[in-house]
């Protein structure tokens, strides 16, 4: 392969917009360095790393001098990071909710933590519904362009298909697993049994069972399939949601992140994290070890913390990009 051809292939790691501006001269530089023998394997890694960095900047995933990309993509990343937080939170909360369907926790800490997390879940639901309604109403009022409508339609199809598969599957499996809605003791906890069962079934893929193949082997094939398919359905819904948010954001006038709901969301995430940590540190799993804390719960809380930190980072950079502050 000639040096020019090799340089051209390496440059492809950069995004198209970057290549249109710097591609030609960059290829020349690489080819010149290859000719004089100064282009080492380390230089190759440097090009690959910076190319990936440029791609991350292009989709608003990196603090870079690209406020337009930050403004365009941040709403979608904020929606995705919040959904991840809620997914991990639901996995933890639903286990405790199911436990409470069997028996009331002995420890005051577990009961208090459950109240905090349950109220927080209700606030999440309200914020999501009101934010969704705001997006729909504003988009409709501002008469989105045809291009936006097409992107909106694709996003809507993915979102509805993913969500439908996710919800229908979760409802179906919530009826058949022990401790869920089908159990005669359901309704004993602080949330309706069906809600807890749905959340448990929906987040059943986030479980320590993956570390115990012998236990997994006893699961019915349909349930195992559901544990594989439910994250895929959720990812499809998330991709659809991201597409909708980007389309709406691009073709309407959402110029700044709305302060009030981001604050409500941030405070609510902190409240939920507080509840989860309260339960983790409480140490009492009685009665009947129903409220046992395992490694998976610790990992779950770490993932929630990371999702929360990511959301805060995204919103901070989004605001700074509007305020005209250099985000290098």
């Amino acid at each position, binding site marked *: 392969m000639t040096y020019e051809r090799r340089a051209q292939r390496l440059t492809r790691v950069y995004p198209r917009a*970057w290549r249109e*501006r*710097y591609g*030609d*001269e*960059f*290829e*020349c*530089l*690489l080819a*010149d*360095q290859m000719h004089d023998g*100064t*282009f080492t394997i*380390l*230089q190759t890694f*440097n*090009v*690959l*790393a*910076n*190319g990936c*960095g*440029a791609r991350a900047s292009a989709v608003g995933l990196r603090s870079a*001098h690209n406020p337009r990309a930050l403004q365009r993509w941040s709403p979608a990343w904020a929606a995705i990071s919040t959904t991840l937080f809620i997914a991990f939170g639901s996995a933890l909360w639903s286990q405790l909710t199911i436990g409470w369907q069997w028996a009331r926790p002995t420890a005051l800490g577990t009961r208090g933590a459950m109240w905090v997390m349950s109220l927080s879940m209700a606030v999440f639901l309200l914020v999501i519904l009101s934010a969704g309604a705001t997006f729909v109403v504003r988009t409709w009022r501002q008469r989105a362009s045809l291009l936006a409508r097409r992107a909106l339609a694709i996003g809507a199809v993915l979102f509805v298909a993913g969500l439908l598969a996710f919800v229908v599957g979760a409802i179906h499996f919530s009826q058949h697993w022990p401790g869920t809605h089908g159990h005669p003791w359901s309704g004993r906890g602080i949330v309706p049994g069906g809600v807890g069962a749905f959340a448990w079934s929906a987040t059943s893929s986030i479980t320590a069972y993956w570390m115990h193949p012998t236990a997994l082997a006893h699961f019915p094939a349909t349930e195992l399939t559901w544990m594989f398919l439910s994250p895929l359905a959720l990812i499809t819904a998330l991709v659809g949601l991201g597409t909708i948010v980007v389309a709406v954001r691009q073709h309407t006038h959402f110029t700044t992140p709305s302060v009030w709901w981001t604050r409500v969301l941030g405070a609510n995430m902190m409240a939920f994290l507080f509840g989860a940590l309260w339960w983790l540190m409480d140490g009492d799993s009685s009665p009947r070890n129903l409220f046992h804390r395992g490694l998976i719960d610790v990992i779950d809380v770490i993932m929630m913390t990371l999702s929360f930190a990511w959301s805060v980072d995204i919103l901070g950079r989004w605001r700074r990009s509007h305020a005209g502050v*250099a985000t*290098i």
Partner: protein
Amino acid sequence: MVPPAATDDSLGSFGRYAGPATLILSSLADGPKHGYALTKDIEDIAGVRLAPGTLYEALSRLENLGLIHALAAEDRRKPYELTAAGALALRTHLTTQRRLVDVGLKRLAGNWGHA
């Protein structure tokens, strides 16, 4: 008295690209150069070989901030030129750095002699 420009150290906000950006601006202070000529000149003046990815990341940031600008391409190679804002930013940054160098050397001489 501190000159007004000394409070506006644009390169200070470049994070890990502050070093490459300073080297590039210092090289361009001598006249316009394209990418390959820049890496050769920087190697000569500072003994540092800037990797191509790092060079172009710093170049694009400097260009976006208006500290350098591209001239017409010569055989696909585009030379870059220092702007007035770039010259001011470089002067401010180097002045700040020189102050630090002076203080460091003075303290070393006071406490460590010529060791």
